[in-house]
């Protein structure tokens, strides 16, 4: 599915949901004021710590695990320890990534697969050969 099809699909889903929103305002049984009384916090606390205590504790464990996982994923990189795991991004690779992003093209990381028309259209004709050169340099360095 290309970008245009995705846009039209999004607009279609948006229109359906807006129609549902307008229909919801006309449902008869929802027009009157609600019964209320759900803001009884004593009853809510009783409910949480008696009927739903297992789910509450599991939620606490899940939150703790999510926090630890987020800290591990986003931890600062250490040059010595992480060198084998993370390849430092070089300057020209950064430039290549930025030019790719600006061109709006979707293609594999393998530079040789850049379609010529996309590279030429985005002004990357010279850059495309530079990309292949960079890939060759990267292979030689490794």
């Amino acid at each position: 599915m290309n970008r245009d099809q995705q846009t039209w699909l999004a607009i279609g889903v948006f229109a359906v949901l807006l129609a549902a929103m307008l229909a919801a305002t006309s449902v008869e049984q929802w027009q009157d004021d609600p019964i209320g009384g759900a803001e009884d916090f004593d009853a809510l606390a009783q409910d949480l710590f008696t009927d739903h205590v297992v789910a509450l504790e599991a939620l606490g464990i899940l939150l703790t695990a999510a926090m630890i996982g987020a800290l591990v994923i986003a931890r600062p990189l250490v040059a010595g320890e992480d060198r084998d795991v993370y390849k430092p991004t070089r300057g020209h690779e950064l430039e290549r990534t930025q030019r790719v992003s600006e061109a709006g093209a979707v293609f594999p990381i393998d530079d040789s697969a850049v379609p010529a028309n996309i590279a030429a259209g985005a002004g990357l004709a010279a850059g495309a050969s530079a990309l292949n050169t960079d890939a060759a340099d990267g292979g030689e360095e490794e």
Partner: protein
Amino acid sequence: MIPTSHSVALSAALLAFGILGLMLNKSALRMLISIELVLNAANINFVAFAQEHGTSDGLTYTLFSIALAAAEAAVGLAILIHLYRHVRTVDTDAATALRF
């Protein structure tokens, strides 16, 4: 009190805008914000029908939903930071490889 139809309409509007933002945006950060809109639309629905029926079950589910949304946002942002370190952009079109 606010009629239930108003709350349901607000929930549907939030859901619509959230899905629209999720499908039209290329930035991963904006996608995460749109997902939060969708989750909050469901929360409003839970609270609205809890008030409609006068029970606290909907409020219990809302609390669970808020906590899950917080966990999902934390992990999603951590993954976004990790991704940015490799492709140096938050554009999802640039992240085409499964590993780096």
